[in-house]
């Protein structure tokens, strides 16, 4: 239910897949066998105004920066599914 208008309608909208790193954490412990460590967890503020929890890939942990522009990519995960993760988008 929409908390603004209490509508129960919804639709699927395609997003640009671009945004900036709002925050991050480089996860070392504890470790779960499904992931390779360190895991770079990020909060990404998408350009459309939505924040998502995800991973940053293609970057060494010391290079993670708040405010960095990122772009979505889709990565295979368990059971033939994919998850949206992010890679550096270069300066905008």
């Amino acid at each position: 239910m929409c908390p603004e208008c209490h509508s129960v309608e919804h639709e699927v909208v395609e997003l640009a897949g671009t945004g900036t790193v709002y925050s991050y954490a480089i996860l070392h412990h504890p470790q779960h066998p499904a992931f390779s460590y360190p895991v770079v967890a990020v909060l990404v503020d998408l350009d459309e105004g939505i924040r998502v929890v995800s991973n940053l890939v293609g970057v060494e942990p010391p290079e993670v920066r708040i405010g960095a522009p990122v772009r979505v990519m889709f990565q295979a995960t368990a059971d033939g599914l994919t998850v949206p993760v992010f890679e550096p988008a270069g300066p905008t």
Partner: protein
Amino acid sequence: MSVSLGGSAAIVGIGQTEFSKAAGRSETQLAGEAIVAALSDAGLTTDDVDGFVSYTIDPVEETELVRALGTPEVRWSSRVPYGGGGSQGVLLHAAAAVAGGAARVVVAYRAIKARSGSRFGRAQVSPRPTSAHSGSTASQWCSPFGVLTPASWMALNATRYMHTYGVTSADFGRAVVQLRDYAATNPNAHFYGTRITLDDHQSSRWIAEPAIRLFDCCQETDGAVALVVTTADRARDTPAPVIVAAAATAGLFEEEIASNHYRPNLEVMEGSVALAAQLFGSGIARSDIDVAMIYDAFSPILLMQLEALGFCGFGEAKDFIADGNLAPGGGLPCNTNGGLIGEGYIHGLNLTVEAVRQLRGVAVNQLDDPSTALVTASRTGVILQRPL
């Protein structure tokens, strides 16, 4: 709306089990032992109890408790969501129940096997014990990305806090050194007898870089605590009552436990801002607080709550702590049992027990004659006072 209970309720008994890494018995037994101890402390019996309150996440069934304790009639019971951030809400529920006449004597309890049982800090992708009805539904959006533990949830907020205000891991470390100093002289604490230096903190391994090292984390603990609440009138007949001067909960829109990352400004604990507006809108000022117990599941939220509660400006908690304000004789002696980081993690309710001890004058790290204590856990809190 300010929630002042007008001093109409009181904590009259406190009890606990030992805190350990392996209790070797059920949570129900731990709760029973703590409750019997708390009632004995109050000069009451299980026949006097007619109400129970705990956390939604607590595994102990009220019906099992009644069977174990032999309580003849339960007139009222309740549970509070938000995990540890809701911990002080049990005092609001209990105080409101007795003040309103729904119950006469309420026991607030928390029993936990956070080390030998279900560990919060274990990396797991299956539904967590916190997944139902405890304010952690947003964790489903974290798990696919390896964000599996409270430390990892919290670190995402804490990194933003560090970035916004120029806070460093060493700033968190100075708080931890103080907590460990208190724990070192508390025989009930996991870290009894083991002080650390800032260097020790800075060389402890990363859990979630750059915010949380091993020594920034609370101790997963087995044990139980219980508090007995009744009306201020009935409290006059008990040996060592402490008045519940104010109690409040501020569960804001789009807030849950640390797994929710969707508020605009994660560097501010807005639930604590709203909580302070209630607690300090009731005739008691920040300057009246002689001792504070502030929920320290992870050290960054100790700093963030000090700011959100208004004891210093935003971004200034690091200086407030470096100036020694949390120490005995400081402006706001804090978590004098060593906190959840130093003493153990009975999910925040052991902080309330320590506040009662301080006001009774029987704490191991007893301060000089405190009369007003604040206990907060994120969005829930109480102000306790020694009777006049």
